[in-house]
């Protein structure tokens, strides 16, 4: 299952709580590769580390270069600056299309593998497996790294007969989100009663609807704005999306993060109970 939602709604906190509640029954995947945070709560050991390559970057061999400038002429991405009379490749701008490679008359250009980021498989402090990654700076956040995280998590779950995979999804509606959502049995949409939250939620719901995947919803910070909470409930009702939890606007969440704990470990009151119950509901629905 995937936990999805706008940045700041509490996705990561909730996923981490489920990771603790699920214990050995879950494999956790942190698909938010652009801003991976779960490791801060689950304290993984980074046991397995792998460099991850995706796409290409051009490289000019200055010894072969005759400075004809054809590469610069064909490049549409301003990736061939001339510095001190020398043609160079701007690695941040280069898209790896290879056009320059094809037109270079002396074959001075090669296409090398582009480092997308780092990929990790770890054991967490609650003794389950976390599959996570860190996108390199200015890397293309394609669905590839996210797909890798999910595929590995699924593989590990299957090989070890672990029943559930929970994934902290990528925010937004772009390619990485699609990669994290497709192939899931359930999407848990986390939202908040703000104009931004409801705006994003309806876009996510539309995307999920297109893929025909079951979804449920958690309203975080529910008591911040009763009117909008009601509006969200109406939306959920109309779209037949069950509401599995309502959490209050409470600084306990921030305190828990600061203390390096998940909310279910840090709090022993209503919040913790609500999350525990929502986890039970998820297990029933999945």
């Amino acid at each position, binding site marked *: 299952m995937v936990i999805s939602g706008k940045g700041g709604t509490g996705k990561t906190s909730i996923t981490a709580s489920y990771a603790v509640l699920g214990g050995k029954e879950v494999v956790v995947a942190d698909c938010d590769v652009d801003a991976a945070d779960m490791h801060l709560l689950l304290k993984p050991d980074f046991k397995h580390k792998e460099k991850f*390559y995706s796409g290409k970057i051009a490289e000019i061999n200055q010894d072969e270069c005759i400075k004809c400038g054809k590469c610069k002429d064909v490049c549409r991405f301003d990736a061939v600056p001339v510095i001190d009379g020398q043609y160079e490749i701007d690695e941040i701008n280069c898209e790896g299309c290879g056009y320059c490679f094809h037109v270079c008359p002396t074959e001075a250009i090669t296409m090398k593998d582009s480092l997308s980021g780092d990929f990790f498989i770890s054991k967490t402090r609650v003794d389950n497996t976390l599959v996570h990654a860190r996108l390199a700076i200015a890397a293309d956040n394609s*669905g590839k790294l996210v797909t890798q995280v999910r595929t590995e998590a699924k593989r590990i779950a299957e090989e070890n007969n672990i029943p559930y995979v929970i994934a902290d999804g990528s925010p937004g509606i772009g*390619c990485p989100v699609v990669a994290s959502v497709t192939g899931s049995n359930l999407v848990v949409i986390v939202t908040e009663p703000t104009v931004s939250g409801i705006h994003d939620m309806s876009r996510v719901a539309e995307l999920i609807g297109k893929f025909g995947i079951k979804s449920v919803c958690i309203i975080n910070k529910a008591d911040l704005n009763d009117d909008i909470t009601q509006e969200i409930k109406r939306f959920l009702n109309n779209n037949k999306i069950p509401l599995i939890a309502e959490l209050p606007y409470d600084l306990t969440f921030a305190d828990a993060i600061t203390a390096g704990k998940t909310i279910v470990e840090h709090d022993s009151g209503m919040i913790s109970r609500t999350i525990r119950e929502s986890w039970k509901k998820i297990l029933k629905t999945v």
Partner: protein
Amino acid sequence: MKIVFAATGGNWDSTVDSRFGRAEGFALYDEEKDELTWHSNAENKAAGHGAGVQAGQKVVSLGADIVVTGGNFGPKAAEVIQAAGIKMVPDVGEITLKEAYNKVK
């Protein structure tokens, strides 16, 4: 007829791969010659985007009449394969190539 299986290996007792675009490889069975040949998908597994497009092209270039996979075909792969007039057989599950062939027959 030529039948291509997305597969984890090139023998009759190898299993059908549940993926298509990023399958380990493709096993091509040529009924006329009674030949089962293996074609690795290694260079495509590493593709960022469009693995399905590449895999689809590969299957077309192998001259397939039917393509079999254990799970789903992604939308891009499906588009390529359909445009080429090849019959798709998805969701056979993770069975052996032999069992899959019997199913297709």
